[in-house]
């Protein structure tokens, strides 16, 4: 019995192989202690500093100085807050402790700042798009019948929604097989070409997305003479997504434990079976995350689509001919117009796009976030059922043999 098994499983006289799973603490690994925790005095200091900084800020901005502006007020109040907090802690602590506490506040405020920015970006888009988002026709109408000055109750962005879905599906069809196969090539074959391919793929992740669009514009549209279409845009987006997917899938496959591969080889499996039945299933959740995050990047890309898809205001379900519009491109074209109604539509389009990305992101978090080889409860159940079936099959075979 190996020491990796936990006590109850080790105690059971079992003939089956048991996968070493995580049982609380990692075996033999080091665990970080939790340090810190907030004391009452710190909390009081924080609140006191915040209150007095607010009051001083209000006094300065409201009464004393002829300065105004929300941003200025926030900055001044924040500086005051840090100074007062430092002063309060300095009254009872040694210098290293004061530095420690003030730095903790500074680090926390960096995080708060970025979260405020995130919330403000999302909330502002939803807020400015709220009127257009409330109209049902936004989701099932296109802009062919609505003029620029028409009210929001007329016309919608169904053409952009459909366009985005078609483009991203085509891009998925192009990139997922190629990207995963290439990642398998980089990891599973000991080819000398793998090094070159890996560095070229690394280099291409640096390709500015507009150059992918320019490349397709110059070859597909100008040299080969095809018209601007959804397909051209999908190819441009694919060129941009491919290195991203390959790179993150490569990282995920590298995390598959080598002993699983060796166990499979020791059982006599040929390499392709090892890849098909051991490596890929082990890395499944990570691969799904890699693909979904690649899709989220591809969905939001405006620049390559701008160059290759053309622009239309009518619904076009054919990616092979005629211009097609995606959500980011529609947003960009809407807000470039001076008409307030169109700008409102632009914000609503951006909000729809953002919600789409948000949904994908949440799906990616649910699927992924688990290291290679660790399975969720339901997956474990399914695996157990399958392995019970295998045992039955083996037993039946043995009975037949004797």
């Amino acid at each position, binding site marked *: 019995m190996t020491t990796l098994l936990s006590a109850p499983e080790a105690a059971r006289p079992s003939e089956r192989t048991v996968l070493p799973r995580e049982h609380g603490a990692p075996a033999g690994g080091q665990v970080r202690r939790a340090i810190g925790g907030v004391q009452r005095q710190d909390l009081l200091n924080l609140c006191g500093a915040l209150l007095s900084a607010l009051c001083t800020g209000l006094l300065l901005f409201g009464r004393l100085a002829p300065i105004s502006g929300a941003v200025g007020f926030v900055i001044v109040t924040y500086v005051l807050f840090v100074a007062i907090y430092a002063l309060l802690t300095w009254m009872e602590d040694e210098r290293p402790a004061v530095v420690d506490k003030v730095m903790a506040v500074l680090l926390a405020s960096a995080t708060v700042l970025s979260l405020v920015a995130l919330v403000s970006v999302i909330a502002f888009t939803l807020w400015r798009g709220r009127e257009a988002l409330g109209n049902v026709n936004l989701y099932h109408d296109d802009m062919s019948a609505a003029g620029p000055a028409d009210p929001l109750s007329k016309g919608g962005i169904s053409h952009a929604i459909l366009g985005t879905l078609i483009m991203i599906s085509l891009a998925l069809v192009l990139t997922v097989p190629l990207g995963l196969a*290439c990642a398998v090539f980089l990891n599973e074959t000991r080819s000398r070409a793998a090094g070159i391919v890996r560095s070229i793929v690394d280099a*291409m992740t640096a390709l500015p997305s507009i150059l992918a669009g320019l490349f397709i514009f110059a070859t597909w549209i100008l040299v080969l003479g095809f018209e601007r279409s959804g397909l051209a845009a999908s190819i441009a987006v694919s060129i941009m997504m491919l290195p991203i997917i390959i790179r993150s899938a490569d990282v995920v496959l590298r995390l598959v434990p080598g002993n699983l591969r060796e166990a499979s080889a020791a059982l006599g499996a040929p390499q392709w079976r090892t890849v098909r039945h051991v490596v890929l299933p082990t890395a499944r959740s990570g691969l799904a995350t890699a693909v979904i995050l690649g899709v989220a990047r591809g969905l939001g890309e405006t620049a390559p689509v701008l160059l290759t898809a053309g622009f239309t205001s009518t619904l076009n379900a054919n990616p092979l001919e005629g211009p097609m519009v995606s959500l980011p491109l529609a*947003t960009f074209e809407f807000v470039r117009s001076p008409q307030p109604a169109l700008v409102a539509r632009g914000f609503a389009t951006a909000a729809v796009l953002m919600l789409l990305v948000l949904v994908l992101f949440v799906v990616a978090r649910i699927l992924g976030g688990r290291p290679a080889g660790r399975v969720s409860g339901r997956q474990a159940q399914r695996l157990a059922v399958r392995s019970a079936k295998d045992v039955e099959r083996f037993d039946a075979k043995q009975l037949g043999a004797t």
Partner: protein
Amino acid sequence: MATTMTTLPGPPSGPAPVPRAIAVQPELGDRIFTRGSLATGLLVLAIMAAVGLFLSFEAAQALRTTGASFLTTAEWQPDRGEFGVAAVLTGTIAIALVAVSIALPVSLGSALFIAEVAPERFRSTLVGLVDLMAAVPSVVYGLWGAYLFQGQILGVSRWLATWFSWIPLFEVSGADPTDPLSSETVFTASTFIAGVVVALMVMPIQCSIMREVFSQVPTGEREGAFALGATRWGMIRIVSLPFARGGIIGGTMLGLGRALGETIAVLLIISPRFDINFHILEAGSNSVSSLIALRYSEASGFGLSALMAAGLALFALTLVVNFTASAFVARSRSGASSEA
């Protein structure tokens, strides 16, 4: 047990053993698998190389006519034969530098907070939120910058220009600090505002790489610092930051690479101008990718070749930045964790 003795085996008698030649004959499925995956790898290689080679080939036409003056000309009039990347490339670099210098402290602070300070139970939520920031489409950031942020930040721009105009960077021509009623339009659409918006996009990338590196700091060294009486910040200063230096530099430069290539958010904010301008608060700026987005449709064949030359210059720049970043990360102690 006196008599039993272990004897070492003497030298083997007879002919020395010769290792067998092992002939591996992969089965059909494996041969298909190996060939197939090699073919896919080469296909990807071919696609990627085709993009690079085609761009250089097309750009060569424009570069041949201008020669070295391509790097020094600020104008962009390809049909008159006067064009160069001096203005757009410096504009791109200025925006990216503003973005990185704003994003660096914020991302470093957030990464340290998430990895070292935040309670365990909030950690994964915070990581998710920062990753979400990276997933928000750039056009959304552009809208936010152009419609909300620009109006709010003008006061700060004006304040900086009023009090710090003796620093050449903050000088604004056309702004009169003594006139409180002067228009604020001289501060709109500036490099600074575009840089702040790009900083929002760059920050999560930098933050996730740095956080990854901070979480790899050896527990033993951490505990050693605490055992010597360090406070938490003391531990961060003497253990975490030195350990993660490679990751911090690498993450920052990867962010820089991303900032250089940003198109649509910059396009929504700046108003294009074609001179070399280091006054970051002044209205108007330019970048290579927004130049391409603005000019590709009306460009002639030669104009397109000129645009590709500009794109190639940008690509070369991002390549250098990215490879330098990987080199930094690979050579540092924390190098194992550089894949983001």
